[in-house]
């Protein structure tokens, strides 16, 4: 998994560089919408650029910053036509255009800056095309953000046991504890475990859907994205 | 039009046509008129009975069979009256009967199904 600490500048999942926030606010677009888009898409765009254009960490970060700074101006959202394509595709194409323009502008020839997918040393197992990676990262980030919201919600509402159970079971890497073990650990009945999990999953689904609503262009786009999400 | 009518009308027409073909047999040309009348009546009888049968029984095969048999029978009667031209009268009569039987099965409205109450 991408444990590259150097991506911390945009990589902890719930925040992106403060420089970006101010640039976006300055650009004058609806700040909430822009923030939602950037917080979701920063990592996917970064990884996409790395894979699609064979850039190293620094170059990719630079390009990603540049994209969000320049592309996220007023026009970017207004030019989006929901009837033609989903927002995710629209954004990805914009990234490609931006990177190509930068490439041209800097006059770089074939020095590893070719616009072709390149195998990197620390490839994600089971690779896939840059577009697939973009989608995977997007999905991952979507869930990560929603999970953060869920955790905050649980902590705020005092649902600490619910969160603990959910985290122990659904967020477990490797082997999952049994319901019985969890029940014993937290001193509740097994049926409660079932209920906590059901509740947490329901909330997560709602949070994911809501976040998705905020970055799609209307009902149709949302429906298509939801469909891709769960398949 | 019910099946009896179909039988009568087609029996008459086909009988008349069949009778008219007697013209091709020179030695009976003089009797054309009576031949045609007789043939027409013969056809109508076959048609009447076939039509009545067709109202009760819905089967093309049986209709054709009955028509042929009736046609043959009446044709024999006519031939027997003259003691001559048995083949020329009975064979066509047989086929015409078959045609009339077929037509009464395929065309016209059958008897309505009576309710028991």
């Amino acid at each position, binding site marked *: *998994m*991408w*444990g590259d600490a150097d991506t911390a500048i945009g990589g902890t*999942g*719930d925040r992106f560089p403060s420089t970006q926030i101010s640039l976006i606010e300055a650009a004058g677009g609806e700040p909430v919408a822009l923030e939602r888009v950037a917080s979701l898409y920063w990592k996917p765009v970064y990884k996409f650029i790395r894979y699609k254009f064979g850039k190293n960490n620094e170059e990719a970060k630079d390009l990603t910053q540049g994209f969000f700074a320049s592309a996220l101006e007023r026009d970017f959202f207004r030019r989006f036509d929901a009837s033609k394509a989903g927002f995710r595709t629209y954004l990805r194409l914009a990234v490609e255009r931006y990177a190509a323009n930068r490439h041209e502008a800097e006059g770089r020839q074939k020095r590893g800056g070719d616009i072709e997918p390149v195998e990197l040393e620390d490839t*994600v*197992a*089971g690779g896939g095309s840059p577009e697939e990676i973009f989608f*995977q990262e997007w*999905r*991952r980030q979507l*869930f*990560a953000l929603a*999970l*953060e919201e869920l955790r905050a919600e649980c902590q705020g509402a005092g649902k600490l046991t619910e969160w603990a159970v959910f985290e122990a079971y*659904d*967020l*477990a*890497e490797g082997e999952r504890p049994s319901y019985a073990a969890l029940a014993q650990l937290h001193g509740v009945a097994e049926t409660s475990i079932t209920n906590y999990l*059901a509740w947490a*999953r*329901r909330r*997560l*689904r*709602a949070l*994911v*859907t809501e976040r998705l609503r905020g970055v799609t262009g209307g*009902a*149709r786009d949302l*429906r298509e994205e*939801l*469909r891709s*999400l*769960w*398949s | 039009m019910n099946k009896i009518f179909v039988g009568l009308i087609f029996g008459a027409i086909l009988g008349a046509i069949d009778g008219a*073909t007697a013209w*091709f*047999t020179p030695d009976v040309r003089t009797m054309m008129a009576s031949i045609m009348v007789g043939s027409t009546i013969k056809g109508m009888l076959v048609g009447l009975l076939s039509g009545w049968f067709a109202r009760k029984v819905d089967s*093309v095969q049986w209709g*054709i069979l009955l028509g042929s048999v009736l046609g043959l029978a009446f044709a024999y009667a006519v031939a027997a009256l003259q003691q001559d031209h048995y*083949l*020329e009268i009975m*064979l*066509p009569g*047989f*086929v*015409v009967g*078959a*045609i009339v039987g*077929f*037509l009464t099965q395929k065309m016209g409205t059958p008897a309505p199904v009576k309710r028991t109450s």
Partner: protein
Amino acid sequence: MELSDSTLRHLCEVVDQPDLSGTRYQLGEELGRGGLGVVYAAHDTQLDRSVALKVMDADWAGEARLIARLEHPGIVPVYESGVLPDGRVFYAMKLVDGMRADRFAAVGPPLGERLRVLLRVGEALAYAHSTGVLHRDLKPQNIMVGRFGEVYVMDWAVEGVGGTPAFRAPEALADQRSDVYGFGALLRFLLPEAAPAALQAIAAKAMNQRPEDRYPDVPAVLREVERFQDGLAVEAYAETWWQRARRFARRNEVLLWLLAAYAAVKFLLFFWRPG
């Protein structure tokens, strides 16, 4: 928070699975994903029978209700609808035991069978149109042919889903004639390699690029196909006189044989008698 691929996969699975607690159903396997939602097999614990459950997000439930109101032998009956704890809507309907029309055609059934299926689909469509409901996404994958000859038209699409390219009419705004197009495409799909020209012509007419060049409605197409089955002339296909004569001969075979027999008898007697 970093999510590994496996955790992400697990979360997707587990969050998407419908929570049926509080309903009378037990979740079975996933049967398919359509434009509107996901269909699962399920067990109705009260009536002790298998059903199909279609689960969808609440926004599109209104349309589902419209479809649930349709009652026709060619349209899958809806038993119940309800809301799940997570806000999703489900409706329980008959679980059809059979195969999709694309598999049905692949088995290589005789032409009569193919047309029978087509006619049943047409009847269901005509009924739906009469109540104001369009299908919009007619294709072999949305037709089920049951084990005992039942034919069901499934997955009635609603505004916005768009249809499937090969079977979708070119015009932007869907109306009855778009379904006529889809119906024609279905006919073409069901026809075998060496299909009668008249049937191909019917399909082609139904699939005209311009809606006004197509049949006005589905019943018109049905009548055409029925005329073909009865050996009559078909509006879409201009026959040569020779084809027309052959058709006439086929329809009136018995009578023609009888007349031929008469002529043969007369001829034989004419030539044999004088001798």
